[in-house]
């Protein structure tokens, strides 16, 4: 289908984008890569009066390391982050997750911030941001606020972003030595949205397990370092706590089983790659 009519503003500066958001609020939508929003518009699931296109902004496409974080601007594409030569050491979890995110042609245009702002419960980037305890910078005409990932995702396609706020930057904490990461996903076809995805961080004696695709938002839980049947029990309890839905493509029972199976695999992967010096030897 074709989108309904809207006005169109190209905003290469964040100031222009937030000024337009201040004027138009809920009637306006930010167009970044468009890989979710344009499909939504084509299917007429949304009908904004104004599109604010930030996709050609150079300042908003900046990706930089600062203060122990990888800071990704609102217009930076997934391809530009995936293609960073040092990504596997900066953010091993993202390096593991990127190949699962849709396809090459979509990652070329799709943005990291756009996927997080869209907040699809099955999407990989919101899951990784939550697993890594990252944060987002929300900017409005009058100022900025920083929101932790755990407070940002509030439900199915819902976030803490107010209608007049631009998701200006996504901040992933860089990997520290001795931390291990695991990522496992099951989808119906390669590149499809996850039926279930699990991201694991092992950090000292803490085991952090985050699950996407099952609840209405990505969900993370912290455990002490568990093994054997204690890990099985924890994963089983986590699986039941997520209120999995029955859907034509996957039953709630399948989703719970995937949390157990993928969870165990992702934990094993994280334990194995915990010491970077060993894996490079």
């Amino acid at each position, binding site marked *: 289908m074709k989108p309904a009519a809207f*006005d169109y503003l190209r905003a290469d500066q964040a100031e*222009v984008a937030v000024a*337009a958001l201040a004027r138009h609020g809920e009637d306006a939508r930010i167009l970044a890569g468009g890989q979710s929003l344009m499909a939504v518009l084509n299917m007429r699931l949304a009908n904004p009066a104004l599109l604010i296109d930030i996709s050609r902004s150079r300042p908003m496409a900046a990706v930089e390391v600062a203060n122990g974080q990888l800071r990704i601007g609102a217009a930076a594409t997934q391809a530009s982050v995936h293609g960073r030569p040092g990504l596997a050491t900066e953010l091993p979890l993202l390096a593991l997750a990127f190949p699962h995110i849709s*396809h090459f042609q979509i990652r070329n245009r799709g943005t990291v911030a756009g996927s997080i702002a869209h907040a699809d419960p099955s999407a990989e980037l919101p899951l990784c941001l939550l697993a890594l305890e990252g944060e987002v910078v929300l900017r409005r005409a009058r100022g900025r606020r920083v929101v932790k990932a755990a407070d940002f995702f509030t439900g199915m396609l819902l976030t803490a972003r107010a209608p007049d706020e631009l998701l200006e930057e996504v901040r992933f904490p860089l990997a520290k030595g001795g931390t291990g990461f695991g990522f496992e996903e099951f989808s119906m076809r390669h590149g499809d949205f996850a039926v279930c995805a699990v991201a694991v961080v092992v950090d000292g004696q803490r085991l952090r397990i985050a699950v996407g695709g099952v609840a209405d938002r990505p969900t993370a839980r912290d455990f002490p370092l568990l093994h054997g049947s204690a890990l099985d029990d924890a994963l089983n309890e986590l699986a039941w706590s997520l209120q999995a839905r029955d859907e034509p493509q996957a039953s709630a029972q399948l989703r719970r089983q995937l949390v157990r199976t993928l969870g165990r695999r992702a934990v094993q992967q994280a334990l194995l790659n915990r010491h970077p010096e060993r894996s490079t030897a």
Partner: protein
Amino acid sequence: MTPDLPPLSRQVLHPVELTLNRQRRTGHAQPRLLLTDFLRDELGATGTHVGCEHGVCGACTVRIDGVACRACLTLAVQVDGRQVDTVEGLALADGTPDQLQQAFKRHHALQCGFCTAGILMSCADWLDRRDAPGAAPHEPTEAEVRDLLSGHICRCTGYTPIVAAVLEVAQARHAARKAGHA
């Protein structure tokens, strides 16, 4: 400070100037017009096909400033001032199919041909990136080609002949590059 320009109105046709297959072209579009429909209906470039119109099938894949992406998820007004390449631009100046198109023909990598234009544009981007200065040259693998093709739906071929055609061209280019360096 950037002048605070008013938005483009939904009711007005706006001029869009682009370089389509190395030629300067101008057309007019309302903001809501998709690049697929702009190419086909306004510029007459009907080689780009309209499939699912939500980014899944890959039939409308074109290159914008060299990068393969979905024309159905792009607005015509977004390509103003940019370079767009479509399947019509692949053949050589005298109309001879290019290396990739010839390999598709040889391997029977198409039947109905609906998905082919998009696949060719994705593969052209991928092959050019492998040849780019600074790219780490490595032997192309079937897994890489299958991963690339996962962004396209073909209901005729079963993909195997497409993989064979793309792999053959990638291997030939890889061998030529190695010979050039020797």
